[in-house]
């Protein structure tokens, strides 16, 4: 009898990651395009601006920061993660050696790699925006930090990763067993009711005051929890090809 092929999960995941990174590269080009559009749109006022005047003196400040690019990247990560769990992508996975576990782990790793690239792209776009303003509009700059610190880099990365993780968890839950779909619907419903009934009870002020590295660790922990839940749900899910 023909001998059976023995392939480890690790080998399959590696191959899947290799092909998924290559095949979904257009997701990154869409991020570049959206960031450039926002960079141009916000070039005159930045992520916030204020001004004051007295007599002949009129002072106007525009703050240029990574904030707007981070928000765009986080939304992008959520949408891309949702797309990864779409039916077309899941059916494509069945055309090669794969299991729900291997495909989900591969999606998570691709999401982490893309999040890292997204941070580099957003920082590059930010510098390009500042350079463009410096050369075209010839505004005076008060530079707070010329270089992005590692802690900001990690914070951006963990934020994008977190949104990607939520997207993957949300998308996988929607295609998961009925019990999980019911649980997810109930959770979302009660969350909305809670937010509308007691909007002041959610206080993010103390979270924002934490050092960057602490927030990053917190985000990474939540992202890890989301990734783990995604794998757990995927393991229990059947494949619907209809």
């Amino acid at each position, binding site marked *: *009898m*023909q001998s*059976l*092929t*023995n*392939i*480890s*999960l690790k080998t*399959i995941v590696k*191959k899947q990651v*290799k*092909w998924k990174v290559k*095949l979904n590269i*257009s997701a990154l080009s869409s991020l570049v395009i959206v960031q450039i559009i926002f960079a141009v749109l916000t070039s005159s006022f930045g992520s916030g601006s204020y001004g004051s005047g007295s007599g002949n003196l009129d002072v106007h400040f525009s703050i240029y920061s990574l904030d707007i690019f981070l928000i765009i990247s986080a939304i992008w990560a959520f949408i891309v993660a949702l797309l990864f769990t779409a039916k*077309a992508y899941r*059916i*494509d996975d*069945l*055309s*090669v*050696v*794969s*299991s*729900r*576990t*291997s495909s989900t782990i591969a999606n998570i790793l691709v999401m982490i790699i893309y999040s890292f690239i997204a941070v580099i792209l957003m920082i590059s776009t930010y510098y390009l925006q500042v350079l463009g303003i410096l050369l075209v509009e010839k505004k005076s700059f008060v530079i707070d930090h010329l270089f992005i610190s590692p802690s900001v880099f990690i914070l951006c990365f963990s934020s994008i990763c977190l949104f990607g993780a939520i997207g993957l968890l949300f998308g996988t839950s929607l295609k998961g067993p009925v019990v999980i779909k019911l649980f997810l619907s109930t959770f979302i419903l009660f969350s909305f009711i809670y937010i509308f009934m007691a909007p002041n009870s959610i206080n993010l002020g103390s979270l924002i005051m934490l050092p960057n590295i602490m927030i990053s660790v917190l985000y990474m922990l939540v992202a890890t929890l989301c990734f783990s839940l995604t794998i757990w749900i995927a*393991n229990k899910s*059947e*494949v619907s*090809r209809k």
Partner: protein
Amino acid sequence: MNIIQCEELSKSFGRRHALQRVTCAIDAEKIIGIIGRNGAGKSTLLNIFAGYLKPMTGSCKVFNENPFNNIQTAANMIFIDDRLSFSDYLSLEDILKMGADFYPNWQNELAYRMLDYAGIDLTAKHQQLSKGQLATFNLVYGLVSRCSLTILDEPMNGMDEAIRTDFYRAILKEYLAFPRTFLITSHHLQEMESILEEILLIDEGSVIAHAPLDEFKEQLISLHGPSDELADLLSETEVYAQKIVAGVTSAVVDASKLFISEEILRTKGIKVSALTASEVCMYLTNKKGRDIDAIFD
């Protein structure tokens, strides 16, 4: 040696019972036809073998392991049907490269030769292929992967007759070159009879027959003769179909319940003839009392 072993397997979708207490064993290195009418439960059974669906009750072992979400089953199995899809960014050539990367026994040269024979352009995208070309490409993909368990769910759908005949030969040649288990479902049983070794017949979610092809065909026979001579005989056996025209009766009966020699039948003017596997399938799965003519009467 069995590569698939199912015990009391059941699966429902809502209130619909797709499979009911299916027990079967599939031997290694055989070409087996999984036959049944539309909605009989063939695809559900194959999806369980492939590890895509989880049975509600009973057990299923493929290569001695539970196939559900099992990477070892996935590594030794390929499931080809018309829903096979690939990324829009891949040309057929890229798809072959990807297949070679994932399947250790992949035969790239053979894939090129077969696709060239079928006149399929390798620079085309999977989505751009016609229905027949798509089926041909998918079948080639399944054959050249040389997996121990190759599941082909309606692989010839959309192919013209000439290419169908060629590819039945291709399946046989591939099987001889690299023996493995083929599970094939098809509505063209007559065409593929020549390559099948066994038939597993499913009806309304249950396995109603599983036997080598010759044995399967011998289950039913056709009797043709004077109605008065056949009347007594038919009352003693199970009749699957019966037609009386001008005092002559034609009937399909269960051969195992007919305790009379062919010699005696001949002396009574009753002609005995064998049925094709396709006809046996049709009669075994026919609903009693169901008649299309009755709708128009």
